[in-house]
C-alpha cells in the first residue's frame, strides 16, 4: 500500500507551508514536496497605485522582514526618480538605509537562532516536542533566552530610529530617507545601559557563534551531513568582492566554487534569471537561464553569501569567516546545517556594521534626498536576511505602477528546500514501518535551516500542531495522527 504523509503546518518557520511525502508499498520515498499554500497577489494589486507608495505598501507582504521589502522597493524607485542604482544617494540617505538594514538583519538572525533553531540544537532533533520549543529554552537556559529577546529588541530599536516604527515604517523614500538620526538616539545605541548597547550586542554575537561552534565540534557528523547536497549559490557582493547586504553586483558560484554569474548589474536580472511555475505550489521556482530549469537552481541566504563573497569588511566577522572557509579548505560549502554557522557570522558582521555606522557623523546631518531625470523602470535588489530579494517596477506617464515583479528570498530557495526535505525523507523514512514525530521534525529541521519566510498569514502562539495524514493508493484517508 502506498502512503502519503502530510506535515502541516511546518513549525518554527515564518509563515505557513506543508510537506507531503509519498511512500510506495515497500516504504520507499517516491516523492516529497514543500507546498506553499498561501496566495498573496501583491504584484497585481500594486498596479495602478502611485509609485512612491510601493515601499510602504509592498512591505505589508511581511511582518517579519518588512524592512527588506521596504528597502528593495525604495532602491527600485531610486532608479525611477533618477537617483542612480543604489550608490547614487546622498551619504546620509545611503547610511541611514544601511543602518536600518543591518538592524533588521541583526534582529532577524537573532530571532531565528535563539527562538526557532536553538530548541533543536539544545535539546536534540528527537527530543520531546513538549520541551523542544522556545518556552523550553526559556525554562532551561534563561540567560540564552534573554539574550535572544534583547538582541532582537536592539535591532528593532535601530529600525524604529531609522524607519519611524519597528514594523512597517516609512523611512526609505524614493531617492533617499526622510529623517536623520538624533544625537540622543545614537548615544543610546552606542552607550545605553547594559545590555542594550552595541558593545554588548557584539559580545553576545560572539557568544552565540561560540555556542554553535561548540555544538558543531560535538556533533560534526550530524551538522556536516544532515540534508547536505551540492548546489549553486547566488548573492549580491560588493564590487570588490566583499560581503555587502545592502548593495552590489550579482554573483553566482557552482557547487565547486566556479563562478557562473560574473558580478553582473542586477538591473539586467531578467537576462540571467527565469522563473518556473508548478501546479502544486504558489511559490515559483527561479533558475539561472544559462543552466536551464533542471540545473539552474541555486541557493540564497547566509550560506550562499559566504560562498560567493571573497571577504567580510569588518574585522571580527572576517576572522570567523576565515575559520568558516578553512573548514572546507576554501571550497564551496554545501552543508545545509552550516547555514546556521554562516548566519551567526553575519549576525556578528551586522553588529559591527551598526557600530561603524553609528559612529558616522553623516547620520546626524546632510541632505536626505536626491533626484534626477525620471525613468520608467527600475530594479532594486537587496540581501534580505533570508537571501536575495528582487523588486522590479515599471510606471506609466501618470506615475502609476503598471508592472511589478517580485522574487522573494525564500522563492529563490524553493528548489533547495524541496531538495533538503527529499534528502531527509529518504534518509529517515525509507523502509520504516512507523513514521515518528522525530522523523517529521527532521524534515522541518532541514527547512528551518533556510529560515524561510513562507509568507506571513499564519502566526501562532506556542506549539503549533503537526498533522500526519495517511492515504492509501487511491488517495483515501486511512489514518490521521495529530501531535
Amino acid at each position, binding site marked *: 500500500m502506498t502512503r502519503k504523509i502530510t506535515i502541516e503546518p511546518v513549525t518554527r518557520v515564518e509563515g505557513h507551508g506543508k510537506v507531503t511525502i509519498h511512500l510506495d508499498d515497500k516504504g520507499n520515498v517516491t516523492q516529497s514536496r514543500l507546498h506553499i499554500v498561501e496566495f498573496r497577489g501583491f504584484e497585481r494589486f500594486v498596479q*495602478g*497605485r*502611485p509609485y*512612491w*507608495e510601493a*515601499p*510602504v*505598501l509592498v512591505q*505589508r507582504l511581511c511582518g517579519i522582514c518588512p524592512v527588506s521589502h521596504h528597502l528593495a522597493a525604495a532602491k527600485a524607485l531610486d532608479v525611477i*526618480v533618477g537617483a542612480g542604482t543604489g550608490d547614487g544617494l546622498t551619504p546620509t540617505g545611503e547610511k541611514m538605509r544601511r543602518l536600518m538594514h543591518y538592524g533588521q538583519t541583526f534582529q532577524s538572525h537573532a530571532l531565528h537562532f535563539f527562538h526557532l533553531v536553538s530548541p533543536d540544537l539544545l535539546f536534540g532533533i528527537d527530543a520531546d516536542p513538549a520541551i523542544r520549543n522556545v518556552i523550553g529554552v526559556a525554562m532551561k537556559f534563561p540567560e540564552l533566552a534573554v539574550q535572544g529577546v534583547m538582541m532582537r529588541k536592539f535591532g528593532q530599536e535601530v529600525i524604529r530610529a531609522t*524607519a*519611524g*516604527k519597528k514594523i*512597517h*515604517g*516609512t*523611512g526609505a*523614500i*524614493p531617492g533617499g530617507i*526622510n*529623517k536623520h538620526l538624533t544625537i540622543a538616539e545614537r548615544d543610546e545605541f552606542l552607550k545605553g545601559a547594559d545590555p542594550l548597547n552595541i558593545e554588548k550586542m557584539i559580545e553576545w554575537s560572539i557568544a552565540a557563534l561560540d555556542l554553535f561552534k561548540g555544538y558543531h565540534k560535538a556533533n560534526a557528523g550530524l551538522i556536516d551531513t544532515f540534508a547536505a547536497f551540492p548546489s549553486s549559490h547566488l548573492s549580491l557582493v560588493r564590487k570588490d568582492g566583499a560581503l555587502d547586504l545592502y548593495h552590489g553586483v550579482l554573483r553566482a558560484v557552482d557547487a565547486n566554487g566556479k563562478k557562473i554569474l560574473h558580478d553582473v548589474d542586477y538591473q539586467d536580472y531578467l537576462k540571467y534569471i527565469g522563473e518556473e511555475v508548478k501546479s502544486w505550489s504558489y511559490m515559483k521556482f527561479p533558475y539561472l537561464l544559462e543552466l536551464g530549469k533542471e540545473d539552474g537552481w541555486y541557493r540564497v541566504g547566509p550560506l550562499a553569501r559566504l560562498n560567493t563573497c571573497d571577504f567580510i569588511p569588518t574585522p571580527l566577522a572576517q576572522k570567523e569567516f576565515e575559520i568558516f572557509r578553512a573548514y572546507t579548505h576554501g571550497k564551496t560549502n554545501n552543508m545545509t546545517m552550516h547555514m546556521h554557522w554562516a548566519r551567526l557570522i553575519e549576525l556578528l558582521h551586522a553588529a559591527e556594521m551598526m557600530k561603524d555606522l553609528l559612529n558616522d557623523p553623516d547620520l546626524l546631518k546632510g541632505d536626505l*534626498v536626491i533626484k534626477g531625470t525620471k525613468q520608467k523602470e527600475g530594479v532594486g535588489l537587496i540581501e534580505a536576511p533570508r537571501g536575495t530579494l528582487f523588486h522590479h517596477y515599471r510606471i506609466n506617464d*501618470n*506615475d*502609476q505602477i503598471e508592472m511589478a515583479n517580485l522574487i522573494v528570498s525564500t522563492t529563490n530557495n524553493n528548489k533547495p528546500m524541496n531538495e533538503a526535505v527529499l534528502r531527509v525523507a529518504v534518509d529517515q523514512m525509507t523502509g520504516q514501518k512507523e513514521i515518528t514525530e522525530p522523523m517529521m521534525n527532521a524534515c522541518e529541521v532541514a527547512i528551518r535551516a533556510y529560515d524561510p519566510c513562507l509568507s506571513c498569514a499564519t502566526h501562532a502562539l506556542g506549539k503549533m500542531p503537526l498533522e500526519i495524514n495517511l492515504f492509501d493508493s487511491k488517495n483515501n484517508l486511512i489514518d490521521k495522527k495529530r501531535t
Partner: protein
Amino acid sequence: MSEKIKFTIDGKECFAEQGQNVLDASRDNGVYIPFLCHVKGIKQAGSCRVCNVKIAGRTMTACTTPVAAGMAVENDTPELRDLRLAIIEALFVEGNHFCPSCEKSGNCELQALAYKFQMMVPRFPYQFPQKQVDAENAKILIDRNRCILCKRCIRSFKDEKGRSLFAFKSRGHKLQICIDEECAANITDEMAQEIMNICPVGALIKKEKGFNEPIGTRKYDNKPIGSDITSVI
C-alpha cells in the same frame, strides 16, 4: 462694536459674534466640536454631519447653525458621541480606506477622528466599492477610494475667474470628485501642497511627495485631533 451673544455648550458659558455659527464660536471659546467638512472662512456645507449637536432637543449641524442668545448646545454626550462614531464608521465602510499604505496617515482627519472616538470594528458591513485613481493631472493625484465627498476642495480652490478647480460628477452612489483640467492646468507645487492639506483624507495627493514626513512628526502622531482647540478633550 456689536455686543457678544451669550450661550452655553454643555453648560459652559460661551460668547459669540453676531451671526457666527456654533462651530466657529465653539472654537473661539476653547470647546472642540468634531468636524470633517468645515473649513474656517469658507462657506459651510453641512455635508459630513460629524459636527451634529443638540439644540432644544433637535439634532443640528453646528457649522450651519447661527448662535442665538441663550442657546443651550449639547456637544459631548454619550448619544452624540455614538452618533458621530456611527458617521465615521459609515465613511470608513463606504470607501476603501487602507491606512497602512496611505501617505496621509498621521495627518488624516478621518483617521484621527476614528482614533479619538476609539473606533474598533465598524457596525456596518464593508462595501469595498470599485473606485478609480485619477492620476492624469501633473501635480495632483485623485484617489477616489479615500474621498468622503466633503466638498472642501470644491469650496476652497478657485481660479482667477472664480471657477472651482474641483467639481462633483455623476449622482447618487456614483457621485465623485473630479478636477477641471483647464482650470487646474497651472497648479503650482505650493498650491498642490495646500490642496493636499485642505483634503481631510488622502483623496487629493500632491504627486511625488510621498511619506517625506517621518513618523513621530506628523500632525496627529503625538496629540489627538482637537488638541489645538482645547487642552481638555
